[in-house]
């Protein structure tokens, strides 16, 4: 066999080693089984103690369209996307030419020999591999050859980048847990790839991994999995959902977790899950269950949010607790269903007709996906209203490192619910009366055995006793009380986090998954002599902290992932006096925002 690692050492040149700071980009075809190989590669690096993050850029399709998986290795712990690709694995003939053309000079390209990619570019370092031959060595089963090709490139990279073989094999065992035959086949294929590379390739590029100790005790999880764990420990007892990308895996993971951890001693479920006929029904079921006393939720994405609009307004007006997850994707309409966005902020905040607004929690990390999910159920029952948790595809479906989640410290807050004894003592109740001055009335659950327990829930005008009314005064009283309740909500939400830099004249405001790119961009700006302060909004409604932060700076950049600067609009609406101090940085390609994008934008304005 001939070594095909060829060409242009003079152009790539001899460079210093680049250790634990590069990005691997694997281009494959979806449905080819590459996901498990990419997970193995990422986990093996993680197990070497090196900070890592993985992002899957996938099509809205089941088989045959291009997919890219990106693994960023960064010794300093930056986990946002970066546009620079240092090591390309070009397995997809459909996209290989484009993929190679996008590389920077000096980058590495690992590809099947028959693609002849060295003819396209000679200023990148090519390692050309006879994958078909190696796959033939790995198995006689034609069907398995394609699958095993993926783990062979892991073996090749293992040699080229110094991924420890032992860690690869541990990761394989974990990936195929319980399937001994699959483990053996994959381990063998990885070894074949590694051995061939060792014998045939001359390493001639700067990229290298070296063991660190920065991931010890950490977990890797996606945001949907983290939210699912949160919901389970929040004691969710009723889930209604309708499948939609990128939200489906939240409920699917929740179902798996609850099947293991939420059975009573007789093996019976302490919960119910209904796959509804659509999102109109999913939110209706969640409201019906919340009204009847279950801890209820639903999960969806933009198109589902649109469908839930009418019932959400009902929930607000009739004051019914439920938790609604919106895992945002690119809209409008079907949009780009497998790309990320923060474009549902305004539509969700004011979802439904009339004067409506809803508390929204905005987790930025998988830890917060977990924590805010727990908190959302307490808030919904305390406030007797639908509470939204807005994540996005990048946070929800990609892999993030995190510290292990802490077991909840706070007991459940079930809110103001009167039982039969309370009613006996009080002699009755008025469903929509503000007894405590916090705007939150008392409710009873159906089935409460007391002649005065019942009330009539309606979406039409109602007075304090839940009776129908069209009187102007009754309506105004009701709407004013709901506003008081909103003020109470401001005291319950997770407050924003400010990181003040006394040298900074400018500030940055961001929320959700944009956070990670902002962290990195601040270091970049700082290196360019532009110190910044940072305020991360973690929930709506706003508190005075947002205003205080803006007041403390000459001007402030609001960074977000939508076309129209929706968060900036909301801030301006709430605090019109701040309008002239606010600037906008908007990224809306569907690809996760990166630090360089923000840095370039801000630096351009500041210089």
């Amino acid at each position, binding site marked *: 066999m001939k070594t095909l690692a060829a060409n242009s050492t003079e152009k790539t040149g001899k460079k210093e080693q680049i250790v634990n700071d590069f990005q691997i980009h694997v281009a494959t075809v979806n449905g080819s089984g590459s996901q498990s190989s990419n997970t193995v590669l990422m986990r093996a690096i993680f197990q070497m103690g090196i900070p890592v993050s993985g992002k899957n850029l996938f099509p809205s399709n089941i088989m045959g369209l291009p997919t890219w998986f990106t693994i960023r290795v960064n010794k300093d712990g930056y986990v946002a996307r970066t546009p620079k690709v240092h090591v390309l694995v070009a397995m997809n003939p459909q996209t290989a030419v484009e993929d190679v053309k996008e590389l920077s000079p000096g980058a590495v390209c690992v590809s099947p020999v028959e693609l002849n990619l060295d003819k396209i570019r000679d200023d990148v370092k090519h390692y050309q591999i006879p994958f078909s031959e190696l796959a033939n060595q790995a198995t006689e089963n034609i069907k398995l050859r394609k699958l095993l090709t993926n783990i062979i490139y892991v073996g090749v990279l293992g040699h080229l980048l110094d991924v420890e073989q032992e860690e690869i094999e541990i990761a394989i065992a974990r990936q195929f847990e319980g399937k001994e035959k699959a483990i053996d086949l994959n381990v063998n294929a990885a070894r074949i790839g590694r051995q061939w590379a060792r014998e045939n390739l001359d390493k001639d590029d700067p990229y290298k991994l070296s063991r660190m100790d920065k991931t010890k*005790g*950490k*977990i890797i999880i996606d945001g949907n999995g983290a939210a699912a*764990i949160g919901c*389970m420990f*929040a*004691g*969710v*007892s*009723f889930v*209604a959902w309708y499948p939609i990308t990128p939200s489906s895996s939240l409920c699917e993971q929740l179902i798996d977790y609850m099947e293991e*951890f*939420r059975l*009573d001693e*007789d093996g*019976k*479920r*302490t*919960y*119910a899950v209904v796959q*509804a*006929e659509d999102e*109109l*029904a*999913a*939110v*209706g*079921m*969640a*409201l*019906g*269950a*919340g*009204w*009847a*006393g*279950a801890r209820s939720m639903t999960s969806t994405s933009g198109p589902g949010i649109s469908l839930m609009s*009418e*019932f959400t307004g*009902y929930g607000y007006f009739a004051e019914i607790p439920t938790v609604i997850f919106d895992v945002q994707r690119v809209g409008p309409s079907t949009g780009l269903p497998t790309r990320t966005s923060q474009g549902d902020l305004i539509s969700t905040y004011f979802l439904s007709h009339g004067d409506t607004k809803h508390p929204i929690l905005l987790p930025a990390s998988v830890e917060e996906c977990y924590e805010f999910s727990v908190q959302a159920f307490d808030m919904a029952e305390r406030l007797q209203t639908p509470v939204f948790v807005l994540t996005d595809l990048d946070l929800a479906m990609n892999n993030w490192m995190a510290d*292990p*989640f802490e*077991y*909840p410290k706070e007991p*459940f807050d079930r809110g103001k619910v009167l039982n039969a004894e309370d009613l006996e003592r009080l002699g009755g109740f008025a469903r929509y009366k503000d007894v405590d001055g916090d705007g939150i009335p008392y409710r009873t*659950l*159906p*089935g409460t*055995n*007391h*002649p005065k*327990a*019942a*009330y*009539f*829930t*309606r*979406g*039409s005008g109602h007075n304090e006793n839940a*009776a129908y009314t069209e009187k102007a005064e009754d309506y105004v009283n009701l709407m004013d009380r709901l506003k008081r309740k909103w003020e109470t909500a401001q005291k319950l939400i997770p407050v924003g986090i400010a990181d003040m830099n006394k040298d900074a004249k400018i500030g940055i405001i961001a929320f959700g998954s944009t956070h990670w790119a902002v962290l990195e961009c601040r270091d970049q700006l700082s290196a360019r002599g532009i110190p910044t302060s940072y305020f991360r909004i973690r929930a709506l409604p706003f508190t005075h902290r947002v205003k205080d932060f803006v007041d403390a700076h000459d001007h402030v950049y609001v960074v977000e992932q939508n076309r129209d600067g929706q968060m900036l609009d909301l801030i301006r609406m709430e605090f019109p006096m701040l309008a002239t101090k606010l600037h906008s940085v908007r990224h809306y390609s569907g690809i996760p925002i990166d630090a360089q994008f923000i840095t370039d934008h801000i630096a351009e304005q500041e210089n």
Partner: protein
Amino acid sequence: MTQASQTSQPTPPARQPQTNKLGLTLADYKGSPSTLCDGCGHDAITSQIIKAFWELSIEPHQVVKLSGIGCSSKTPAYFLSRSHGFNSVHGRMPSIATGAHMANQKLTLLGVSGDGDTASIGLGQFGHLIRRNVPVVYIIENNGVYGLTKGQFSATADRGSKLKDGTVNELTAIDLCGLAIELGCGFVARSFAGDPRQLVTLLKAAVSHRGTAVLDVISPCVTFNNHAGSTKSYKTAKEIDTPLHGLDYIPFYEQITVDYEEGTVRDVQLHDGSVLQLKKIDRDYDPTDRFAADRAIHQSHRDGTLLTGLLYIDKELRDFSSVQNMVDEPLSSLQQKDLRPPKESMDKIMQALM
């Protein structure tokens, strides 16, 4: 006609209002005064709901009244004031009912809808309620028009029926009973607001059924659809009403005391042990035969009759919550100790993610 179901009603003490087995009077099952038009068929149905629940001695606090949007959907305010009510959004009462049932499967759910609410926007949720067999007594107060928006045709208006201004409906009517049978509903009946005795008997049988029970009741709209040329006026409905059988309901706590000549009566045992007696009129009708039910409905369309009675029953179907392997206690009464897994569970999950 026998009065079998009436024989054991307690004799009222002089000048005291009559009470049921719970010691409650009929008034305890009433609601606010109706605000519908005088003579509305819906008010006649409301009266029979009150009567049925009172006579069955159902604990009002165990009942939930549900509805969608429209004249019919206003009526839950007019009965069972001691029961929780939920007047939801248009056509989507079934989803509220499904959630409420899963939260507390011990509740008795009574849904009131109309032809506008069920046969148009609500058709999807109606279908899926049936498919899941959520235990709801689902009454359609069917008058063929949108009353609250002043008299437009609904999707159950018969072809050829006329509006007040002479507009003729050219479209095929949706037969909600036929559809319910097709969708696998375990209890399908049709009645007429002008036949209170049949209606109250079918209502009681529907309450005794465990699963979705569809009761399509022709309920004339006196304001917008009670004129000559309408197929859903009191006059026409009365003329074409063709009962499948005479009906008697014997609650589970009473003995069957009247003997009938062999071959003239069919006893249908209901889920709670009560019995619905079907007394032959012209022909023997077997309500457990789905094909026969389908045929009878299609024949009635051809004949231009209003076929009333118990069209179809299958009491063996399992209801939605009973196929979920849920704990016996309602989910709504579970507390933190039942709902939050212990710390060891969290440790195990975290370990697996490391």
